[in-house]
């Protein structure tokens, strides 16, 4: 060996320190945006800086953000799940049906999670088993799942959830910290560890960047993707439990249009819609930003559609600005 490598070159591990890279990252940009919005909100409305109001405001994003964590993984792996809102509806319907059959709270949780997992499994099977594109499959199951709850419920509503069931969407763990918020925080940690610190997370990135090469490298691509769709199903089930508990009732139109908000949150969080890159802390920040924007505008009684314009502009500009900035710098450098 030795005589062949006359000058074996030593390749350094890294050129940039982790700190300097973090500073230039998407997350730090989002952090700046979040702080700015927080400051503007505090100025704009006297009601903003009130612990209970802030606590109420977290309900704007906690359910969506929990789904967004799983969705982030799905999108990083190069897929998408547009059926999450419909899974919420179907889970909620299943729980309502269970109530009419006399289920108690623990049973309801099992039904809600089970339905979510089942829907996730259906998506997963169609996508990994038959090899169909996820965007189309989940557009289909989006209609199918919600359609099923329409068939089950029709023009009826399920109410009469047991009193103890109300805890998931209306209960508080400690002081102003709601059960939902605590759940959100726990999942933020779990998903950060899962994506950034485990072999599974590495496999997700590898699949998102080059699925075929990942397969050849011994990544069980089908299994990983199937698990990812199970996870979005599960998280939609959890969100469904929270939302149903918060509303105290079920109608088939529950959570209409939530899938686009979840995807927006994920993309705003810096996850590349093309797959292969993104982080959970980014998604957490994006959740806070979207929640604060919604709440801040709400306090000023600005119509919801104006908030969505703002989110739309934010989405595009947060992605466009760094590109324009880099371009301008290159021009100056020349």
């Amino acid at each position, binding site marked *: 060996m030795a005589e062949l490598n006359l000058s074996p070159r030593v390749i350094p591990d890294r050129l940039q320190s982790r700190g300097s890279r973090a500073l230039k990252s998407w997350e730090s940009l989002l952090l700046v945006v979040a702080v700015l919005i927080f400051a503007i909100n505090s100025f704009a409305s006297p009601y903003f800086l009130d612990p209970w109001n802030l606590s109420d405001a977290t309900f704007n994003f906690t359910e969506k953000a929990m789904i967004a964590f799983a969705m982030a993984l799905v999108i990083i792996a190069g897929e998408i799940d547009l059926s999450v809102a419909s899974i919420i509806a179907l889970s909620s319907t299943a729980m309502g049906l269970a109530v009419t059959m006399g289920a108690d709270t623990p049973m309801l949780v099992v039904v809600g999670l089970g339905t979510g997992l089942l829907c996730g499994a259906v998506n997963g099977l169609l996508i990994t088993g038959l090899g169909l594109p996820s965007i189309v499959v989940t557009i*289909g199951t989006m*209609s*199918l*799942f919600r*359609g099923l709850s329409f068939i089950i419920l029709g023009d009826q509503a399920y109410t009469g959830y047991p009193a103890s069931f109300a805890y998931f969407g209306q209960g508080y763990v400690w002081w102003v910290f709601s059960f939902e918020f605590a759940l959100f925080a726990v999942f933020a940690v779990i998903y950060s560890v899962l994506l950034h610190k485990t072999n599974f997370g590495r496999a997700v990135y590898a699949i998102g960047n080059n699925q075929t090469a990942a397969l050849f490298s011994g990544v069980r691509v089908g299994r990983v993707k199937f698990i990812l769709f199970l996870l979005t199903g599960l998280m939609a089930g959890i969100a469904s439990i929270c939302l149903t508990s918060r509303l105290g009732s079920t109608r088939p139109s529950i959570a209409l249009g939530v899938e686009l908000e979840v995807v927006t949150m994920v993309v705003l969080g810096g996850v590349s819609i093309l797959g292969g890159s993104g982080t959970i802390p980014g998604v957490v920040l994006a959740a806070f930003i979207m929640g604060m924007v919604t709440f801040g505008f709400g306090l000023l009684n600005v119509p919801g559609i104006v908030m969505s314009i703002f*989110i*739309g502009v934010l989405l*595009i500009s947060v992605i466009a600005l760094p590109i324009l900035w880099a371009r301008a710098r290159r021009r100056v450098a020349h």
Partner: protein
Amino acid sequence: MAKLLKNREILLVLAIIALVFAIALRFPGFVAPANLARVYNDTSILIILALGQMAVILTRCIDLSMAANLALCGMVAAMINAAFPGVPIPLVILAVVALGAALGSINGLLVWKLDIPPIVVTLGTLTIFRGMIFLLTNGAWINAHQMSDAFKALPRAPLIGFPVLSWLSIVAIAAVYILMTRTPVGRAFFAVGGNPHAAVYTGIDVGRTRFLAYCLSGGLAGLAGYLWVSRYAVAYVDIAAGFELDIIAACVIGGISIAGGIGSVGGAVLGSLFLGVIKNALPVINISPFAQLAISGTVIIIAVAVNARTEKRKGRVILKKAEAV
């Protein structure tokens, strides 16, 4: 005929015919020529939109903002008409087609010049366009009595047996067909979606081609905006909300690959007709309104599964023996 249609399209034609006859078993009136013409007319707007979406999807992009673009253009058409009833309708149409193309070009520019992924761009402009309608009108509706009779009459006016609406969609089909098969731009749509990397080496400007596809989809959305508003004689913020998914579904059913590069005008038209037949048939054959959503979901899933099957690579055959079989 067989040359015009690919395998997958023949399959779709057969599926549509089977579907129509199945419906006719329960409701014979459905196959009456007048009724079929009515179903076609009802599907015309979807066809026009699907043609635009097809061009965009072919270039490996997607336009989620089409329905919002339609709504904005429709509202502007209605506002022009309400404020200046004297403006000739063709001029109004021209104006909204131009407006639609301009809105589409915003998508196109963001995709071209800033390289932002199409799904993100159009997700953003989807909310922005709808919001703009709200800002324009403060949420107010424009109702039938505020529109001039000429404005409302055009799409319904009969012309050689069919309403103008149907004819407009036929013209759009023919124009897009020629564009896609006989012009360099049309072929560039296929090339850019099939292999964007190779397109650069071929001297095709990938970004510019995508930009043109978005202008086309925008312009068609503008046209559809006028047609929608005049046909239903009402304009408000939420018209055609969620319709973007129908448009994409029509394309997918028509065998246009979401990964770009594969698809045809025939496919887009047939996919739209398939959806149109189902939508029109469900109410008349007394299927519970609650089952409609689940049925269209199932249809979409079956359609992709079938398409994937017919598209599945035959596989390269190496053994001489196997080749003969």
